[in-house]
């Protein structure tokens, strides 16, 4: 989140900086919690794909600042492949969420106890090929889900960012095999013009005959093969095309109508307000070198 004139246009953006959050997405988790109260009385929570860490910041404040009882037994673990700046009361792990070692590390930190709550605000970069982008996003959710099935207690809650695209109803259907209630929730802080929403899965109830096991040589698809969540399985033949199970999850808009509308333009930010300094320094994009070359005029049409 940089220092920009977006302060005037995007109220959540400015509010995030004022309140010291690393990204405006913090309000999405706050508004989801306002609706579902899934952070009341939780002890062990995991934030997957956590960088830059705004959800971990929310978890830290909700678990430790709002309710100081039993602070010594509370644990927050944040996992990401990218390095993260430290956050109070949060243990950050730079690791791959699909790797069994990551699971072991978290279980060590939890001293063998299972988690009450797992969330993921991760999203891959989009290419513009809608089907590929949706597939990769769903694989990311399933990767988060496979780790979740290994560490979430029965009755626990799983929350993840989704994009409501063409095949979202397949994901709803699959998740409903593992949770009592699956809701598609849209906080007011998430733009109405964006396809972003959050899947809130309440009441984890894994099939009794299935024991999830992470293995370095198994894909996410292999992982769920033993658990019938309606995903396609292949044995020795690639099957004919068939319609796969789909269902539409209940939709809840949260954050209340009195909260700010992320699609609206607000005028009450004074015109001459100076842009607030960013909470966190910007990250290095992979195309940094290309940008430098462009700036030096080396990417022209002259060949």
């Amino acid at each position, binding site marked *: 989140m940089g220092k920009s004139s977006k302060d005037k246009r995007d109220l959540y953006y400015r509010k995030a900086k004022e309140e010291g959050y690393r990204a405006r997405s913090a309000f999405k988790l706050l508004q989801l919690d306002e609706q579902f109260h899934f952070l009341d009385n939780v002890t062990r929570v995991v934030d997957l794909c956590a960088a830059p860490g705004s959800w971990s910041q929310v978890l830290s404040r909700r678990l430790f600042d709002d309710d100081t009882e039993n602070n010594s037994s509370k644990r927050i673990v944040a996992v990401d492949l990218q390095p993260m700046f430290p956050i109070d009361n949060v243990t950050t792990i730079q690791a791959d969420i699909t790797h069994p070692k990551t699971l072991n590390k978290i279980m060590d930190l939890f001293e063998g106890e299972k988690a009450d709550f797992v969330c993921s605000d991760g999203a891959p970069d989009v290419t513009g090929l809608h089907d590929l982008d949706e597939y990769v996003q769903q694989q990311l959710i399933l990767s988060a889900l496979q780790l979740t099935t290994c560490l979430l207690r029965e009755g626990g809650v799983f929350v993840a960012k989704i994009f409501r695209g063409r095949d979202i109803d397949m994901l709803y259907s699959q998740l409903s095999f593992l949770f009592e209630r699956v809701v598609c929730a849209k906080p007011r802080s998430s733009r109405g013009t964006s396809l972003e929403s959050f899947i809130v899965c309440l009441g984890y109830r894994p099939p009794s005959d299935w024991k999830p096991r992470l293995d370095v040589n198994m894909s996410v698809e292999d992982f769920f093969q033993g658990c019938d969540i309606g995903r396609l399985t292949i044995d020795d033949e690639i099957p004919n095309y068939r319609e796969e199970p789909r269902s539409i999850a209940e939709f809840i*808009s949260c954050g209340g109508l009195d909260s700010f509308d992320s699609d609206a333009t607000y005028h009450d930010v004074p015109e001459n307000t100076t842009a607030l300094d960013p909470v966190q320094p910007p990250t290095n994009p992979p195309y940094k070198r290309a940008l430098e070359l462009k700036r030096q005029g080396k990417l022209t049409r002259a060949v």
Partner: protein
Amino acid sequence: MSQLRQLSHTGPSVCVKFHGKYVLAGYGVFVHVYNYESGELVSISRVFHRNKVHGLAIREKSVLLYGGRSVSLLDIDYLWGNADNTRFEKLCHEWVVSGEHSMDGSSVFLLTSYNKVLCCDLSFRVLQTKAVYGERSILYSGTITVLNQDKVLVNAGTVMDGVLVWDLKTEKTIHHFTDHEGSIFYVAASIKGRYAASCSDDRSIKLWDLHSGHLVSTGWGHTARIWNLKFYDNDSKLISVSEDCTCRVWEISERGTLIQKSIHELHQTKSIWGVDVNDEKMIAVTSGNDGRIKITDLNARTKSDSDSRIFSLDDISKHGVKLRPNEIIKGFYWLRFGLLAMTSEGQVLKFDQKAEMWTSVMTDSRFTSYSATSGVQEFDMVIFSNSRCELLILKFSEDGNEILENKQLQINELTKSTNCLVRGYNSKLFLVMESPNPKDPFFCLRMDASNLQHEERLYFKKPKNFTASSFAFYENFAIFGSRFSTLAIFDLENCEREATVLRKILPGDTITSIDFVEKNSESDCLFSVSDRDGFYCFISINFLKRSHKVLLQNRIPKGFLEGAHYNAQGDFITYGFKSNLFYVFNETKQYEVFSELCGGAHRQWRYLPNFGLDEFIFIYIKASSINFRKIHKAAYPEILRNGLHGREIRDLCVRTEPLHLGKTVFCSASEDTTIKLNVLNVKDGETKTVWTFRKHTSGLQRCKFINNKFMISSAAREELYLWELTDTFMSNPYMTIICALPSSSEIPDLRIMDFACKAIEGTEDFILTTVYSDSAIKVWLYSSDENTFKLLISDKYQTCCLLNVALVTLDTELILVVSPTDGHLVCWNLTKYIPYVIQNNKLVKVLEGFQPQIHLPDISERIAVHSAGIKSFEFKIIAENRFFVYTGGDDNAVAISEFVLDKSHKTIQGCVRSFISAGAASTITSVKLIRRDMTLLTASVDQVVRYYDVSAGDLVLKNKFYTTNADTGCIDTLSSATGSIALIGGVGFSVWTLE
């Protein structure tokens, strides 16, 4: 039961492949087969139910198709013979990144996104699953190199972990290339197996030596992500395509260095996905997000030696031409036989293109140091002039060997001349001299072109602030273009008469070209006019009535515009400069026809026809050498399918009445900030873009035809324009902005989310209401006499963004209906707030004694319908006091609400009549009433079009259909004789018929 049937589909194409004289293109769920020699679309075959075709591999008669989790193997003849091949589709459990046949054709390999290869027999029985043990990367890309029956290499492009090259048989990693930053989007192996090339999020191409395992070189150049690579020409070249919409050719040197050789701008914003090369013909085919399938001559329209020549002054003197030490070329002109040039010493040089010889024609010392050169090709004539008003006219024989006429003239009427313009018209030569003294008239010499006799001397009084930069003749009129985008029209029969001066017809400055297009039955003459700053317009001039009207005004994407004209195919062509590049651009089809690097400022150049259909020559001086570049007619059709927008279509609007020539037109408004005016064939759904308007500077929100003449478009930054459509010319329909809505601040940052209009009977005036992202609601009166929008009401709902607005007339009342992001429907009674009397649902006459009030009345009714924003609504008047509102929301729900006005007209009561919470799996983006409002169509992001019977006032789902347009966002409909036509837009565009 009614059936929706897809007539046509235009959308992203991810893969293309040459096969003999055909191009096979994955086009959504279809495979298109084109004959690239004739340009004909030979067949369209549906191969998958829902998934897009991402790749195809051909071995003899067997075609392996894959896309998403779908795969299919079929006989190639089936693609020609069967419109529906979906019965062969198989569904894998993982995304298939790539597929290939085995060397002997007995099996196929499928590489999945989990870096596994499924080895299958031809009925997709999995014989073996291969993977590198302990390797668990997710792939964005990959290819399979089948070297022989036993040796197969997998080139895997991972999301996080670089490139992995592994051996299928041994399941061992051979190379792990980690020099890229970010995800790998493509890996290609060279044909002979020495190299692999990869591209990534870092926007570079890296070439790897597969023997040594070393990085050989890195190619920088693309300004966005690169999506596809291919080696060709015996591994000596590599072609790349990118998100930046260019295709680039890289030469691979002996030592493996990547050298960028050419850049082709081929597609519309954004992304070229697919590429293939035909080595023998040296042509490339590309496919993009815009749905375009484009053929490109990799030799840049066959650049053979004789087509591209450079002569330095040294070279010229080697031909026996005597040149003084400082003698340089000052001007040149191209005739049938070759070039004529004037030097700084007054020497006339001739280049005979057949003999490839330079000769000196003569020396005329009057033209030492300053001279201007021009000519008339059809008269084989070249004209030199100097500042002392001296002229030399040379008329050559066709072969250039003889000078048929040699005329030397001194114009005594002017003392000094800075400008000499020349044109041929109706076998007459017209010469116009302009003096630097603004008080001097234009001096025009008219003579027979055949013998340069029968001189007539004409004078035209120059208008104020006028410096001629171009001119044209039509019938008895001369039209001069000047700086300040001014035109002056002179009557040749009556030179004394003051010119008709049309000032500032374009936003730019110097007019660079004026071309006659056509004359219609009303004797209106249409001209295209361009200015150097990148704007062009079409202006209709009636010389008899001395009237004129600008029918279209537009600008090119970037650079300077030196001229524009229609070509023989009826495409509008522009040309000019972009920094040090000369370009020719097809404005109708939106692609670069030609470009040449020719150096920067103070350039001397000529772009002229070269005696043949679509043959041109570009001549320029660079570093004191003269360069010729011939531009031939393309050897193959350049466009196999043109596509539409390269980004999401945000709105569509059809003009309900066909044009006078029977054509149906519609506008498409896109995220790419352009509005396209398109012609639709209602029988087969084929669409042809006529104009691409670049007036908006931000992503479009809405466009609607408010009647047959006017269209309104709105976008962010408070942009709202009123467009007028003209269809009185044969060449094309034309459209231009006639009025812009005033914005509320100097730096407008509000989005105009929607608008609605109500016509005032018997006039072209209307009431307009606009709703904004800051909750503002405004009501305006458009006056056609004054051509202004006058603000009547300005108020706010709350603070949330408003999404939709409608104006509903109920008998004698006018109701404003708004839907904000809070999911409510809100009504106001505006009857007393507008200066018109309403009768029988119509605004009929001015209300006497009207008292303007800037604020809205109190809200009449506000009901909660959806739990999130209402994305789209439609209304229908049920009775004189009752209307329904049909809504679709971000909460996936679809609803019908009813509003009733009480007898005293004081209150409105609303309620939800019918509500389906799971109306779609995702956001419902558009609802549309069709078939005399008996049926409701909904479109949603889950790519399903649903069809409800609403005749009984509730929602009864009748049917649903899958649409191939991702991010489905808008529908418009048109009634036809046989039923209705529905246009559906998103990322892509499709036309459906409802029978």
